């Protein structure tokens, strides 16, 4: 039986974090499955558990000066209902589990879990979200893209907590989200896709594309996006094959019990092509 902590304030939580190696528990929807041992058995956590889902500091969601701040432990359901939530993030949250899971699950958990299939990661990536990582010794803000180092691996230190996610509310002319899952609801992703485009005067002024479940971490390439930015819209069809070939090198999916690598890769590339050329997702 492991020890567990239930701090009342963020400061208490950070203090525990600084003294003890422990597993932060936000909504529990991933952890309780990962450490499940069966009926009548306590979940088999292998380290002390730090409950943080109750902390007021981590459960606020608000918009201020065009920036949306989402506390790490705000349940998906509240993000869905927040009127400032960008549509692509709302759609992603609506497709995570079903209502009963959305009432528990949190983006903080989704991000720190660092699953290649984490459904908030592609939309947060194209939103250029920043993460606030706090410890007793201070706080740092990092881009979500620099947070992941591999499947289940992040730069979060043992004494830190992810406390908030924030991003500027986007102003794009086209947005797209698509989850290709194992079924229409309550499903895991085979491929997920989030993107924005800004078109100005027949030019592609900006584009952001992210893909989930097709590589060890979320795929987003500013370099490839830059090759499209500034191009006349009429040239996109001509440029795209080469760009897709380059995306193909970043897309390194696996074959598992839910889908196969070939399908994941083909669909990922088709989703990019379709979005850029037809504005559909």
């Amino acid at each position, binding site marked *: 039986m492991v020890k567990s902590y239930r701090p009342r304030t963020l400061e208490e939580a950070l203090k525990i974090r600084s003294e003890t190696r422990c597993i932060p528990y936000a909504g529990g929807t991933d952890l309780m499955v990962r450490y499940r041992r069966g009926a009548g058995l306590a979940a088999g956590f292998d380290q002390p558990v730090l409950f943080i889902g109750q902390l007021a500091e981590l459960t606020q969601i608000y918009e201020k000066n065009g920036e949306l701040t989402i506390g790490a432990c705000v349940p998906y359901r509240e993000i869905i209902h927040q009127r400032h939530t960008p549509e692509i993030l709302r759609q992603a949250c609506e497709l995570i589990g079903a209502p009963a899971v959305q009432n528990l699950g949190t983006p903080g958990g989704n991000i720190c879990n660092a699953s290649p299939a984490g459904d908030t990661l592609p939309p947060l990536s194209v939103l250029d979200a920043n993460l606030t990582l706090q410890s007793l010794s201070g706080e740092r803000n990092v881009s979500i893209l620099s947070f992941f180092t591999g499947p289940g691996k992040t730069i979060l230190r043992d004494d830190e907590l992810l406390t908030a996610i924030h991003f500027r509310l986007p102003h794009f002319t086209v947005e797209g989200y698509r989850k290709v899952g194992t079924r229409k609801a309550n499903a895991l992703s085979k491929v997920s896709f989030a993107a924005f485009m800004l078109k100005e005067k027949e030019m592609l002024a900006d584009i952001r594309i992210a893909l989930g479940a097709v590589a060890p971490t979320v795929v987003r390439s500013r370099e490839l996006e830059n090759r499209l930015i500034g191009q006349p819209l009429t040239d996109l069809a001509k440029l795209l094959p080469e760009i897709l070939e380059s995306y193909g090198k970043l897309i390194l999916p696996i074959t598992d019990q839910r889908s*196969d690598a070939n399908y994941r890769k083909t669909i990922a590339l088709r989703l990019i092509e379709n979005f850029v050329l037809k504005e559909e997702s």
Partner: protein
Amino acid sequence: MKNSISTPTDRLDGPEKASGKAVYTDDIRPEGLLFARTLRADRPRARITAIRLPEIPDNYFIVDRNDVPGRNRIKMLEDDWPFFAGEVINHVGEPILLVVGPDREKVADILNSIEVEYEDLPPVLSIDDAIAAKSPIFGDDNCFAAYSFRKGDPDTAFSTAKTVIEGEFKTGYHEQAYMEPQGMIGSYKNGKLTVTGSMQCPFYVKNAMMQLTGFKEDAVQIIQATTGGAFGGKEEYPSLLAGHVAVAAIKTGKPVKLVLERGEDLAVTTKRHPSVSRYRSAIDENGRVIAMEADITLDGGAYAGLSAVVLQRALFAAIGVYNIPNVTVRGRVMATNHVPSGAFRGFGAPQAFFAVEMHMEQIASELGMNPLTFKEIHLVRQGDTTSTGGVLRDEIKIHEMLAKVLKMSNYRKKEGIFASKKGRFRSGIGLAIYLHGCGFTGKGEEIIKGTATIRKLAEDRAEILISNVEMGQGAQTTLRKIVARILELPIQNIEYANPDTDRVPDSGPTVASRTVIIVGHLLESAAKELKKRWNESETLSVSKSYRHPSYIQWDQDKLQGDAYPAYSWGIVAVEVEVDTLTYETAVKGVWTVHDVGIAIDEEIIRGQIEGGILQGLGYASLEVMDTADGAYRQHSFTDYIIPTSVDAPVIESELIDNPYEYGPFGAKCAGELPIAGAAPAYAAAVSHALGIEIHEIPVKPEILIKRAVK
């Protein structure tokens, strides 16, 4: 005119289920209960060379084959399936021993510290491996059963044919996915063994326990607990679990409960047999099929179980609803080192209907004919002979049903519009026509000779005494309604408790869609007699036993004659939309008409039809289950995907009355029927949408994209 018995009645088991008061197996918590968990083989075929146990504390027990008082074999057709593995294990997940004790944490700790040493043996991991029989695991050819029969003169027909068209069709594993995992509780007191649990067939379990223990009939009692869905999955497998808790209870002298975890249930219980079917048809110059040859092979898994009978039903369905003058049907079920396959709603027929319907689609497409028109000209009519030479004696209303489905679905119009649709979203519509032979195959009912009893109780009440169970299909309401109607009593005055083998006669198992047509008919005649004799005495019981109608002839050795006493019929049209960006498919509509004789309760029948169709659509589309190194790759409901409410289409369903002389109030069978057509109708619709032939289910986007995009 609508038959008055069909008017819906409130389900009698509804309130206790909705309020959570109904007691399922895991809800039973007797004093002194011990919990059991199972140590399972982690490889497909091996000899166990050593089992190292940790120190076992007081009040904890290891239970294995050495504790079996009688025979360590489940009583079935072939007694080859052990309760506890012998020296050689034959499939992943095969039970080796149980750890039993009062505290589940300690039981888990003990289980996790047991070490098993194996010496691997070469496994048989596919139908092809099994046929090659390099290292046979059953007999010298790995074949559990093989049958063949002919009608007419297929050889001559093939030699005179203008065209011969061949096709191969495959179906995958299909998991019942009942919501309540399997579970049993055993107790042993004063020389009497009692097993309570989730099951379809109390007397199958009883017979299995008698062989396991060597106990006399009156020393074994089986009680059905409220059962949370079964679909065939709780036909034969519960005998194995019952055996485990029985041996454990006898050894420990305490009540022992064993409830499977969902992942465990997925990993080790029986599924629908995967199949490979080869079809060949001879076509004459008028575009008519003059001969058809069907060859069906099933993967039976490691033990014979019920596979031989599943194969028989597949073969008797192999020619579908078509009158083909010359027929050859062959089939075999192969032994592999997979988890044993078993009973699942439809019992072999869904595999055959998928194959024959897709073969008919294939022939039509290769002849350049409209598939529906092609099917229509081959439909059977009253008086035609079946592929086994039986006679379709009763009225067949299939043309009337077809006209209805076509109208409901606007089929012909959509067929035309969809074919010319371009762009990203493609639509398609497909249709399947099917039947289900009611009751046991062949001589089954004569062998079982079910008996049903109705007992008069005080205050104008009566009790149904049968061994058939309510498992969600509505037996509680349907059977009480039949008896209440004849006795002219309110339905609430008719009692029907979950069967307890100490109290009820053996009316047979709750399988083969036999509960209403066979047992309901026995109850109907018992009730009629009881009604006449109602005032004879305060305590009066009337029993009726099955008598085989003399005109139904069956030769089990030659597989000739009437394989079933009667048939129910169905037609289903499915409309799909395929997103050609991702090759995901959505079902946009389902229209269906069934002939189940007379519905005892329209609402319950609608529930059977809609549930069966969605289960069949899942089989056709989402429900992927496959193996790697002999183990299923899908371990949970996260991996084994069944449809949710969002995936489920609206189903427009109608019935057509066609009363059957020997069924209660004219009822035939209904439970299994609706699953037979959903998969071929879905596949035909996808095929129509994309203009490609489909020969395999599940129709995964991963396969479609490969087929449709160069």
